[in-house]
């Protein structure tokens, strides 16, 4: 989370690039090339937003009363059974809102994407990249403003959706509001 995105993009390039240890292997065995592709952009976004999601999921798992797992254990549930029937469902609100926040944050990724997957319109161009590109062209100001508006709406809407999803699932799970 504290590493600059560009550094992460560059590290991805080193690892997954056509000459990188993993990238070369993927290319040789499966013919997969990640650099400068939509998939590559997705991976860069995922790596960038993962800490955000992990945080949300971890918080929601830590909030579960350990006594419930103990109760499940005395009722005959083994470790995996307890995880699937108690921990996972009870952590669902956090997982869901974490996923939404992660998705919205991914749409706004810039540094890691431009370094690893470049800025190819229609393929690896994220919203901020499009705004930046628009600002670089003369008369691009209006396009940039429209895109910025979309970006703001997405951010606010995403946060609201995450909050709403969290609350809805919590209520469905029987937590007190």
């Amino acid at each position, binding site marked *: 989370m504290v590493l600059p995105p560009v550094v992460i993009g560059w590290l991805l390039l080193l690892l997954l690039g056509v000459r990188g240890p993993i990238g070369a292997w993927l290319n040789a065995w499966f013919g997969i090339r990640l650099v400068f592709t939509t998939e590559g952009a997705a991976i860069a976004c995922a790596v960038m937003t993962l800490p955000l999601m992990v945080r949300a999921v971890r918080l929601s798992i830590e909030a579960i009363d350990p006594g419930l797992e103990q109760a499940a*254990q005395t009722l*005959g549930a083994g470790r995996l059974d307890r995880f699937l029937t*108690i921990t996972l469902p009870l952590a669902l609100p956090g997982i869901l809102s974490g996923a939404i926040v992660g998705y919205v944050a991914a749409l706004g990724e810039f540094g890691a994407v431009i370094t690893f997957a470049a800025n190819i319109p229609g393929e690896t161009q994220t919203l901020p990249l499009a705004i930046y590109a628009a600002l670089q062209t003369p008369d691009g100001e209006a396009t940039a403003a429209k895109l910025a508006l979309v970006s703001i709406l997405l951010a606010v809407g995403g946060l609201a959706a995450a909050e709403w999803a969290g609350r809805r699932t919590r209520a469905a799970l029987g937590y007190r509001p």
Partner: protein
Amino acid sequence: MIQFSLRHTWPGGTNLAPNLAPGLTIDFTAPPGATALFGPSGAGKSTVVATIAGLFQAQAARVIIDGVVLTDTEHRIHIPPERRRLGLVFQDARLFPHLRVRQNLRYGLKRAPPGAIRFDDIVDLLGIAPLLDRRPHTLSGGERQRVAIGRALLAQPRLLLMDEPLASLDAARKAEILPYLARLKHALALPIIYVTHALDEVLAIADTLILLESGQVRAAGPLAELTARGDLPLAARDDAGAVLQARVAEHHPARQLSLLRAGPLALWVPLVAGSLGTQLRVRIPAREIILATEAPAGISLHNILPTLVVAVTEDHTRHIAMVELATGEARLLARVTPDAVARLALRPGKPVLALVKSMSVDVIR
């Protein structure tokens, strides 16, 4: 039968909790029926339950239930909690909030081998049929605890462990659940270990009593025997009194009296419900017993019980004397003043009459 042995010293002394006993040395054997672990908080009661359940691993412990070894540190045996098949009821019900009552009840049932305890019977016994489709957070404390008990029972346990199951409930909710527990004890021939620091719960449920005090067993034995002892902390309580197992011998509706028999003792009490032969548990409060060397005449009293003094324990700081009495196998406990002991020259072996008002006999159930 449960054979239990525990040795444990808390690392770092008792800094964790000031009233915790520094070390535990607890051994007991519990016969079939309900066994109450009774004692102040910090005596080690919950540690015993956690050890039996396998949730706590003591430095040295042995837990054998009906011949099945669940824990034996000496032979490095520790069956994990999920394979012990013990029903555990916690003080906080710990119902799964994301499941309805029905699914909560079935959670253990689904994971247990087929057994004799049936879903419909338990729902009936605990009166939880109207709650089946509700969510745990919509239940009252008493309802939640009943569901928790049902859930534990449906896991087909070989033993029901209850760790202060009623401690978080108020007196009214407690009174609502106690009869269910008593019923359950009779309906299912299931051994029960019941942890509590409330004497009324002990009196209602326990057959065997194990008194714990700062990590040690202070006394263990049948409830009737221990409640009639004058030298235990139980006797120092204001509500001390011997418990007797009695049966209804006669009803006299015209006189509005019933005659109960507890061994050789005949006790007149205000008319009770229950057909002849019904087993009842009664308690005679120690402070309600008057001792006499001659039978009084012209008195409203119904019960004049011939007994022998077994032991006298005087407590000079509180200016009371506890007199243990016996008639055959029936035991009574009386609280009198040291002066009365001197005037009547009460000493072990002396015949004495115990006078008990019929109104003073507590019929527990």
